[in-house]
């Protein structure tokens, strides 16, 4: 077959045909992958919530509440609240924004933290994913700190920063602090009501 001439009619027909076939192929693949993509992103969410909280038996992803830009996942065991997972973020990372999932117990103590999405420098800022850094926060009660503020040691706080990645460490604290403040303002009080009164202390801002 000889090559088509570059006449206007041929050019339009050829491009139209290719675009149509390609769009159809794309639509097909899109429909095929739509559900797995949604499932993959939900699976990631559920996995993170499970990791940061003690055992629960409800489905927190169906009861989410969004407050001041953060997503709260309430977890209950046998109908009794056992804490909240909070999807929080910071804009202060070395490469801008990153997302964290922080698990709070009803008394405002941190249970565990998982790093969700981040673009920090590999080998430096990414060390915030490692237990050596992030496990410092476990069982930490921010309410008992000076001014209830989370800070790295360099700034007079209690957290050991990742070496050569102070900016990422500060940003990490910033994200957790944001989650804590909004959590305490909006959720801790009701839970404190159904549990015991020692939690009230943390509830006072």
């Amino acid at each position, binding site marked *: 077959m000889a090559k088509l001439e570059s006449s206007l009619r041929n050019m339009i027909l050829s491009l139209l045909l290719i675009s149509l076939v390609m769009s159809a192929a794309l639509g097909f693949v899109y429909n095929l992958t739509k559900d797995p993509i949604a499932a993959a992103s939900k699976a990631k969410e559920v996995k993170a919530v499970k990791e940061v909280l003690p055992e629960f038996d409800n489905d927190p992803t169906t009861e989410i509440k969004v407050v001041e830009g953060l997503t709260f996942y309430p977890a209950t065991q046998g109908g009794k609240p056992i804490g909240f997972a909070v999807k929080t973020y910071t804009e202060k990372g070395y490469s801008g924004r990153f997302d964290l999932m922080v698990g709070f117990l009803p008394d405002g103590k941190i249970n565990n933290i998982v790093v969700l999405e981040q673009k920090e420098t590999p080998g430096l800022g990414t060390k915030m994913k490692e237990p050596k850094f992030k496990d410092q926060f476990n069982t930490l009660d921010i309410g008992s700190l000076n001014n209830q503020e989370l800070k790295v040691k360099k700034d007079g706080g209690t957290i050991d920063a990742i070496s*050569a990645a102070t900016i990422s460490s500060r940003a990490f604290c910033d994200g957790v602090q944001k989650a804590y403040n909004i959590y305490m303002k909006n959720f801790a009080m009701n839970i404190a009501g159904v549990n015991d009164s020692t939690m009230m202390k943390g509830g006072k801002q």
Partner: protein
Amino acid sequence: MSQLKYFTNGLFKENPSFVLVLGTCPTLAVTTAAINGIGMGAATTFVLVFSNLMIAALKDLIPNKVRIAAFIVIIATFVTIVDLVMKAFTPDLYATLGIFIPLIVVNCIILGRAEAFAQKSNVVPAILDGLGMGIGFTLAITLMGSIREILGNGSIFNIKLVAEDANTILIFILPPGAFITYGYLIAIMNRMKKRYNI
């Protein structure tokens, strides 16, 4: 058997990263770890093979004046397919490679091969050429990734080679290390080409 040369061409003699110096952006950006090299390489190879195949098959239907536009539509379609498939089935790798997956569309290797090879050839050589170029690219960026990961993080394919708290040469996984590693690799390649007369 003579068709084999289409395949081996891209592996060394015209290696896209080290000899043609095309596709430099992903070569520098995603090579902070060896595994990223394989992921990025596989995605690029897929697009190369299928776009070469389509373009060689449709070459008579594409009038000369609009060929670049037609190539871009074909390439962008396959890139979007890779994008969707990776998002669905390898979400972690997708998150690491990030913006560089959609950017395969502007990877000069692919448009370059379409223009310089696929539009003039038959389907089989075009596929072999795509495969060879793709694998050559994959090998090159995996090599880059390995060197940077070993020196900068003391590990390879996430397997630690040194003690957990040992000091590594961090600069190699930072941006400057990418440029410097790449520069020296091309220099070594130049030297080898001269010495062995390839």
